[in-house]
């Protein structure tokens, strides 16, 4: 960003705009690109959510055709998952992992450039399907056949775009693993790594393991449609339910791909503002690892209603309930970290505490959903919608805001506007609950998800939810303003930035030089890393 003036030892960034941004192999620049792209997509997906909430504001069809509504729900999910949340975490990984482990850059800088620049192309294709005859995908982001096979032109193009996104994610993940395994500074043992690095290492393995499975599933859809195979068609001896098994074998680990790095972020922020080391570092690492392992054996809880044998349903119910244990360990560890600390409540800490509380609400409704016989009622209702938005919006997205506020001073060299940051937090946290909490009631009272119109008894809660939705959407504009303001100027940030911050990134200047740690730093046992006592 404005790194050039602070760069005394090494060459600064290329002066030409194209060289700097299009051909960049610098982890900080690529991280910035990822983060800005994710922010853009957050608003694209958010605009679609606004259309959804506007149509649902009252019963009756006022604004859009039901088929267009289905395109909105489908594309909202695809854009938010693959365009906003995942790229934002990859952006953070690019920026922070090298400077948290004392590496000069990512292991494979040129591939890094490719993984980013595939994204805008993939999304250009994906969003262009809106203009094609028949419109964009409208069968839900889960793309279940046979419904998925009823699309027009959008079908092959969207599948191509998703393949590209998968390739981009896999390349990004390989880069993360190679960086973490091979480029740690001397003395930075695995069990001394900051938790953000740990969670990303595990996330990267998850991505490498499951994105190819998604690629396989959608390739089978493609051959079913155009090349006469019948993987998922009953007519030729296939089974549409098999698609759901394969999809959710990808889909459940995907959920954790979007939440494990959030755990890492929160585990960095809470100790900083509690001025106290993270409680139970090693149990945190084991908890993340066991959550990742369990994520491979619980997929069928997304499809309890397809009619599985009793033994299968029992197995998936028990395995799913088991996830509550390591997740609980993490929440208790965060609370124990806050306990008897000396806390201050700057914006990153507010978002982190908001995360712990609201993610826990999502976790608790998750336990309810795990109970298979009760899930027969909850499944495919707004209760599920409320659940996964608590986990993904007040979970993943809140952690991203926390991370942005936490590291913005380091990235730009300027303090962000604390007053605006607090406004952003308080408006977000109130409106997001107005938006999603009533959806629990709607679901329990019997409102199915993915419907553009509803019976009149659901009117009041939908209105409340829509008002919360518009307000939440508008509140996010504050964040854009904070970021722009922070990039353009502001109070000079110190290297340490936060009084309680510990870790290698805070030993660098703010902003860090364009090339940092070209000679590896020395890690001493008293370096104050998260695993070691101060």
């Amino acid at each position, binding site marked *: 960003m404005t790194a050039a003036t602070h760069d005394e030892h090494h060459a600064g960034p290329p002066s030409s705009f194209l060289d700097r941004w299009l051909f960049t192999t610098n982890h900080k620049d690529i991280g910035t690109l990822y983060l800005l792209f994710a922010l853009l997509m957050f608003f694209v997906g958010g605009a679609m959510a606004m259309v959804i909430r506007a149509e649902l504001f009252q019963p009756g069809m006022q604004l859009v055709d039901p088929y267009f509504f289905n395109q909105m729900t489908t594309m909202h999910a695809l854009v938010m998952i693959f365009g906003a949340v995942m790229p934002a975490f990859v952006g953070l990984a690019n920026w922070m992992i090298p400077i948290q482990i004392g590496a000069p850059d990512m292991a*494979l800088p040129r591939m890094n450039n490719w993984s980013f620049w595939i994204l805008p192309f993939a999304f250009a294709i994906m969003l262009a399907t809106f203009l094609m005859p028949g419109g964009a995908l409208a069968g839900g982001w889960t793309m279940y056949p046979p419904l998925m096979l009823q699309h027009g032109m959008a079908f092959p193009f969207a599948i191509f775009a998703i393949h590209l996104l998968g390739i981009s994610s*896999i390349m990004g993940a390989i880069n993360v693993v190679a960086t973490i395994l091979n480029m740690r500074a001397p003395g930075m043992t695995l069990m001394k790594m900051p938790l953000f690095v740990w969670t990303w290492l595990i996330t990267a393995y998850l991505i490498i393991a499951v*994105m190819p*499975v998604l*690629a*396989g*599933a959608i390739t*089978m859809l493609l051959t079913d449609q155009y090349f006469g195979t019948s993987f998922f068609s009953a007519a030729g001896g296939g089974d549409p339910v*098999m698609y759901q098994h394969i999809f959710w074998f990808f889909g459940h680990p995907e959920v954790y791909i979007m939440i494990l790095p959030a755990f890492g972020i929160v585990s960095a922020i809470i100790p900083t503002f509690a001025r106290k080391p993270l409680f139970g570092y090693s149990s945190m690492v084991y908890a993340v690892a066991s959550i990742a392992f369990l994520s491979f054996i619980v997929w069928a809880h997304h499809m309890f209603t397809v*009619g599985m044998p009793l033994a299968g349903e029992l197995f998936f119910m028990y395995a799913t309930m088991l996830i509550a244990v390591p997740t609980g360990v993490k929440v208790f560890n965060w609370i124990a970290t806050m306990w008897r600390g000396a806390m201050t409540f700057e914006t990153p800490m507010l978002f982190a505490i908001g995360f712990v509380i609201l993610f826990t609400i999502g976790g608790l409704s998750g336990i309810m959903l795990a109970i298979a016989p009760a899930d027969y009622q909850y499944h495919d209702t707004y209760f599920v919608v409320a659940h996964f938005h608590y986990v993904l919006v007040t979970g993943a997205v809140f952690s991203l805001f926390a991370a942005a506020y936490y590291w913005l001073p380091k990235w730009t060299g300027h303090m962000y506007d604390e007053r605006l940051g607090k406004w952003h937090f308080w408006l977000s946290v109130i409106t997001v609950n107005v938006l999603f909490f009533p959806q629990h009631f709607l679901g329990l009272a019997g409102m199915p998800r993915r419907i553009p119109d509803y019976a009149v008894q659901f009117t009041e809660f939908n209105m409340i939810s829509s008002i919360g939705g518009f307000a939440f959407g508008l509140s996010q504009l504050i964040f854009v303003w904070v970021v722009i303001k922070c990039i353009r100027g502001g109070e000079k940030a110190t290297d340490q930035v936060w009084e309680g911050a510990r870790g290698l990134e805070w030993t660098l200047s703010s902003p860090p030089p364009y090339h940092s740690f070209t000679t590896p730093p020395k890690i001493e046992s008293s370096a104050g890393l998260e695993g070691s006592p101060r």
Partner: protein
Amino acid sequence: MSENREQPKRHGRTVGKLLAVAFGMFAFGFALVPLYQVICEVTGLNGFVSNRIVNEPMPEVDKSRTVTVEFLANVGGGANWEFRPTVRTMEVHPGEIYTTSYYARNPAGDAAAAQASYSVAPGNAARYFGKPDCFCFTRQEFDAGEGRDMPVTFFVSPNLPANVNRVTLAYTFHELAN
């Protein structure tokens, strides 16, 4: 950790291993297809009938027990074929072989072909349901307006769980495009 010169080599090894994992998982996605078939056969998932028991030695006929077998017919989306079982239900003794049939008629003015798939409910009965002979998953050619009976030979194994007293055999008839 290591000399800078060794770094590219180490990265190459790491990338190679990870790419192998990625390709392996892509293949695994496809391997799930036969794996799923095996799981269906073993568990009767989705009413998949394993004809494995057809090849096993047949246990004694259990005259003391009667099971109701009901026959359902569906026509796959879009088609307008006439398709129905000739009898709706049969009372059978486990272990004995029975024959029934389905009637199908091509309503169109042109010759056409169709193929049937089937499903057995409840799922835990599927593996005890044997069909030594059936018209499923083979192409059935029909002349314009032709209708005919298609036989099904089946038996219920005496090992059928005791709490199952009604078994449903459902065929779905799908018109084939040329």
